[in-house]
């Protein structure tokens, strides 16, 4: 009696193992059964990221001989999975480069195919965010989207102050934020919200002062830190410790009308449009240019491009190149502008398509915000980037929680970057 269940279990396991061995994997031939060339594209959250669908469908409509298949990877740990896959010799044709740091790592390891000839054929002047992809005169990826930071504001909260947001200095910004702040407890409305990342302090300081975030001399962070800490102290901004430990998200606080102004990447626009369409929020929002150190009418901000690259071990490299070229070119740009995403390729047509999106603010202020005079790279690219990034992140946390004074924090950043990063 006792032995029968054990045996049955063993048999069941054997059968299921066989079944598991057969299942999955899929066809690896590189063509579909009806003879179309397969291009596999590694990307994230296909179902909830409309730009990918727009690009793939647009491309397939023009290239009926090619079947583009998404390889869906979770956004959260995308880079880790791609690193592992490439280490194993994976042959996925196109790889989406989430940021420039990851890109430089794959490219310098020799995992990406050179796209020099494609870049040569481009109308370079119409591209923003192409330069960061140059490594020793070579290109291994083409940007298709280029987000940069603007100031999102809640019209209901900002309008009553009568403030003009078209040409704010940081000092103006701070006093406006304090003016907006009101209420207590659950009804508290904050003037502004800085996400706990280091970018709203450090990257903007670097972009507007010309400071070098890899340089090991971080005196240029000082003013922006004092601004942020002052906002926090005056109650116009949520304390960093609370925001961090309660995982407060900029979109949530902005959509629920708890904050007046949020400096954030242009990607927030698409998310707000979507949530308004779904009825998640009814916030009346607008876009303004980033505040400046000196309010002289010129806008300098920072941004980070997203790109497509071709895997060196791609199964169908020429079809993959065709897709990358199309997606980053004018047609791809038009396709993603229509879903509210800022493309890397800019042209009047594309601009028009972007502002024509239903619900997109199209006033003069928004138009000015979306045409900054200079967009610097969020973080310069080099083999030191990741290490420096880590150090700056850690010290940022300590300064913002008040564990370290601004001076001490900057001193520590200088010291650690010089001694720890070779």
């Amino acid at each position, binding site marked *: 009696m006792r*032995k029968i269940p054990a045996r049955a279990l063993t048999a069941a396991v054997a059968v*299921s193992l066989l079944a598991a*061995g057969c*299942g999955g994997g899929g066809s690896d031939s590189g063509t579909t059964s009806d003879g179309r060339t397969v291009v596999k594209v590694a990307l994230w959250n296909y179902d909830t990221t409309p730009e990918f669908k727009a690009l793939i469908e647009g491309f397939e409509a023009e290239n009926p001989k090619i079947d583009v298949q998404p390889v869906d990877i979770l956004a*959260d740990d995308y880079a880790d999975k791609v690193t592992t896959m490439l280490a194993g010799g994976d042959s996925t044709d196109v790889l989406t480069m989430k940021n420039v740091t990851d890109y430089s790592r794959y490219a310098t390891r020799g995992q990406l195919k050179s796209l020099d000839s494609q870049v040569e054929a481009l109308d370079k002047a119409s591209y923003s965010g192409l330069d960061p992809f140059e490594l020793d005169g070579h290109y291994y990826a083409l940007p298709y989207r280029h987000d940069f930071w603007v100031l999102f504001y809640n019209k209901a909260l900002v309008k009553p102050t009568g403030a003009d947001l078209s040409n704010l200095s940081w000092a103006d910004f701070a006093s406006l934020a304090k003016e907006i702040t009101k209420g207590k407890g659950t009804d508290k409305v904050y003037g502004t919200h800085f996400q706990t990342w280091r970018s709203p302090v450090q990257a903007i300081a670097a972009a507007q002062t010309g400071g070098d975030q890899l340089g090991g001399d971080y005196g240029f962070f000082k003013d922006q830190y004092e601004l942020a800490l002052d906002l926090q102290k005056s109650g116009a901004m949520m304390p960093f410790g609370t925001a961090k430990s309660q995982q407060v998200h900029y*979109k*949530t606080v902005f959509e629920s009308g708890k904050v007046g102004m949020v400096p954030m990447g242009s990607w927030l626009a698409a998310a707000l449009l979507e949530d308004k369409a779904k009825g998640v929020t009814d916030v009346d929002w607008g876009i303004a240019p980033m505040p400046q150190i000196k309010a002289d009418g010129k806008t300098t901000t920072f941004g980070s491009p997203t790109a497509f690259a071709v895997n060196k071990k791609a199964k169908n490299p020429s079809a993959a190149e065709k897709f990358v070229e199309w997606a980053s070119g004018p047609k791809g740009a038009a396709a993603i502008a229509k879903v509210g995403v800022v493309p890397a390729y800019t042209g009047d047509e594309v601009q028009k398509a972007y502002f024509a999106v239903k619900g997109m603010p199209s006033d003069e202020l928004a138009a000015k915000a979306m045409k900054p005079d200079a967009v610097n790279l969020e973080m310069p690219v080099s083999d030191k980037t990741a290490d420096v990034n880590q150090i700056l992140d850690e010290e940022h946390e300590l300064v913002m929680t008040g564990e370290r004074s601004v001076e001490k924090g900057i001193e520590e950043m200088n010291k650690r970057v010089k001694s720890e990063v070779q």
Partner: protein
Amino acid sequence: MNTTTLRKDSTETGAPPAAPAPAPPGRRGELGTTVGRVLLYAGLIVLAAAILLPFGWMLISSVKTDNAVFTVPIQWIPEEFRWQNFTEIWTDIPLLTYLGNSLFLSVTITVLQVLTGSFAAYGFAKMQFPGRDALFLGYIATIAVPWQAYMVPQYIMMEKIGLVNTHLSLILLQAFGAFGVFLMRQFYMTIPDEISEAARLDGLSEYGIWARMILPLSKPALASLALLTFVNTWNDYMGPFIYLTDNDLWTVQLGLRQFVGMYDARYAMIMTGSVLSVLPILVIFLLGQRYFVQGIATSGIK
């Protein structure tokens, strides 16, 4: 408080040497016992409530809107109950497929781990042969290396064999761990050797002793091994994330992470999914913990 409960406890545990419970609870009419029991229950319930608070938060968040999940201060009673989260999640993501995959993987891995682990443990605990201890130490040693360190070499190996993106890869990786061997060996060592000696004199082979004497005696240990293996496999995220690419092979833990986007996340849905994914574990646990009762034969044999 603590010592009194402890004292109470031992009168209880110590009592039943024979299999059928000798004194059904509640029949002891003495006043002291009743007061003690009330106190014990009260204490345990308070403690359990404290223990369950985060789970409560998870439950509450599962019927909130996405924007209401992370708030300052925390919101214990939602302004708006979104019960439809529990219906929408089935169509938003192929949750049923994910649950099926998780179940398949967890059951297969648990069965294999329990079978091979308890089998190997007999060799380590009840047999004498050269190299045994060194081999055992080898087993233990590998537990000391963090998976983060060898996941890439392991992945490369799997890719070479061609098993990446199959359930089989995960089954093979997780079914033969050292955990089960170690756990079962420790338990077998508490079983008196006289039992196997007697069986040997009766002419049973070592395999016979394992199957007929040792296994039935180690039900509690088998139950805890099965429970823990099941839970760990069910909740594993990194393993399936690295090895499974096709969406129709994904497990629940992967599926739920789809709600985390590049710039934002649908937290209410994640919590809804988490609540649903805990239910199977609950059932398994409630069923499995019944085996935590005194083994009969340990006391039966002289």
